[in-house]
């Protein structure tokens, strides 16, 4: 097995301790940090995501893999920054105003990170104006909104309306949460809808490409 393949397997299996030496060795061998991310980490998380989607593993196992990836990134990121390399996509995610549910949002954030996106998590109960402010600050390519209460679905619409009136009006918006449907997404002018955390990455990539 090649070293990059070993790294991939270590991430898949969540063997955090194996990751650090492998990354250092690869760097010592002169491999480009960007290549390590693109050929080691991202494919590893894709495998993990696929296994989860096929009901072969559960989220805790994904989290362990995500942590292993994070260990690698902790070494690689400073190098990437120095070389001016950034993740291709930046995403802002939040649960809307009046709603405190964050498990679903957190899962989606984790999965997007696994797909090598830069995810800025604004937390829960986020008012529309705070959201617009954050967009101005971070200039994301994608916005992801979550709501779990029927009575905070209107807050989702308000947030989208506020974004559409702001300079960031053309940014793609995806939404999700238990009471949300494709029809509601159409009604309030969201660009995408994800039925569950597992398909969030697919939805995001469809919107971004």
């Amino acid at each position, binding site marked *: 097995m090649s070293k990059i393949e070993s790294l991939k397997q270590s991430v898949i299996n969540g063997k955090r301790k194996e990751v650090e030496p492998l990354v250092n060795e690869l760097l010592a061998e002169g491999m480009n940090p960007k290549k390590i991310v693109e050929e080691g980490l991202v494919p590893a998380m894709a495998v993990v995501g696929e296994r989860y989607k096929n*009901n072969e593993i559960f*989220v805790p196992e994904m*989290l362990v893999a995500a942590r292993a990836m994070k260990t690698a990134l902790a070494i690689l990121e400073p190098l990437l920054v120095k070389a001016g390399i950034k993740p291709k996509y930046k995403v802002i995610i939040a649960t809307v105003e*009046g709603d405190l549910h964050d*498990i679903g949002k*957190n899962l989606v954030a984790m999965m997007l990170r696994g797909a090598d996106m830069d995810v800025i998590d604004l937390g829960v109960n986020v008012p529309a104006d705070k959201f617009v402010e954050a967009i101005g600050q971070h200039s994301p390519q994608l916005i992801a909104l979550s709501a779990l209460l*029927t009575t905070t679905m209107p807050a989702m619409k308000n947030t989208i309306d506020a974004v559409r009136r702001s300079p960031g009006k053309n940014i793609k918006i995806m939404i999700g949460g238990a009471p949300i449907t494709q029809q*509601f997404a159409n009604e309030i002018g969201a660009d995408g809808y994800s039925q569950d955390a597992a398909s969030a990455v697919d939805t995001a990539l469809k919107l971004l490409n």
Partner: protein
Amino acid sequence: MCYRCAQSIAELIDSMGARRSSWPGETSISTIGNYMTHYTKLAIDRAEDLRFGTAPQPVSTRRGMIIGGGTVYPELNFTLPSIEIKKENWPEIRNHYQQIISSALQRAAELDCPGVVIEFETLPPMTEHPEWGLEIAQTLLDSMEKAHATHGLKSVLRMTPNDNREFVRPPQLRSGYHLERMLQLFETSAAAGAELLSIESVGGKELHDQALVECDISQVIFALCILGARDMEFLWSKLHEIALRHRVYCAGDTACGFGNTAMVLAEQKIITRAFATVVRAVTAVRSLVAYECGAVGPGKDCGYENVILKAITGCPMAMEGKSAACAHLSSMGNIAAAACDTWSNESVQNIRLLSAMAPTVSMEQLIYDCRLMNQATHESKDSALTLQRWMIASDAALDPQAFILTPENSIALAKAIVGADSRYHAGQAVALEAIRLMKKAHEAGKLKIAPRELPWLDRVEKTVTDLPEDEDEFISDMMETVDASKYNPAEYGLKT
């Protein structure tokens, strides 16, 4: 208020009739108001006595419903469809509730229902503005009074304000804006005639969510048995005082945000069913605290752990199963009814179905479910047990959580809890007992557990077994491990 209240005092309270079906004179109440019950034995220790409709400590309402007195009553819940809760929408919002309650009670009267529990679980802004919550409560109470006057329909209101304390992050639990307003809504609605007080309290949830998605049983026990339990002690002592003042009942709490979150995550295959099952068992330690602080039931509907609590306390319990499928899918559709005293739909939006508005549809379904149970009970205790046997056999072999909640297994779990000398040890003991029950049944071919779930059982068992014996040591271990930015130990009376 300490947890290990002397058993002698607990027995004194028992002998004074503190847990009874109607309030005694005020004098005896005020003398016992400051003590907590510490359950050291079971109120129900034979599976055949743990059945629907009948509880050793029934609760009598003002209009003469006797919950746990032989009849299972429907308990109706409802919520708004998608609508923003703000002043401008208030007339429409009030109309929704007005329409919900009048149609549902109308249907209950048409179907000759012997009595109905109405739960008003408010929406967060209605607790933040207690006058809003009170206005809706009053609307419901007025309709209930009218249905009683017109049709002789008995009903009682369960008031469930929101625990908004988590709107501040980390949650501010023991003081502040959200606590004050929540207590104000309890106080005013109890004064207005809401006879049953409930809540889904959130203490510990800020750490439990993360523990769930990581299947981290140590943090689950810390969140439920240390943090959650301490917060419930604080909160339910306050509610006990309110209940005493207005001569209403503390009905009970539920580990909804804990046990049901785990259950739903398991249904969505995010975490394993086996782990969700262990979590359910541990939630009983936390939910029990309400009863230790004076609650008398009926325990709140969405606490599937209620059957364990019924064995310990003898109080009647609300439960929900197949007719709550509108609110959440469940692997316990029938078995959940095995020991219920009220039977609930959990929640449904006020939206139009082909027949009628959804809450009216739920009311009809619940009434028919209850009729069937009450027919069996009416015939004989044996008949009730026969129906219960089918309810159990329907679900128990197919799902680990259903399996540990059979009357027999619930009693085993209840024993593990009352046999422990602290909530921490109770949490450990009940987790291990749940695992033991699952493993034994799986080996005997009596319970289906998916192969990919099995390794989790061993993993969780080992973690629990390896926990320190000493509670203080456990607490200080955990305080080092958990994400300290997420919670404030002082809000739980823990020293940092």
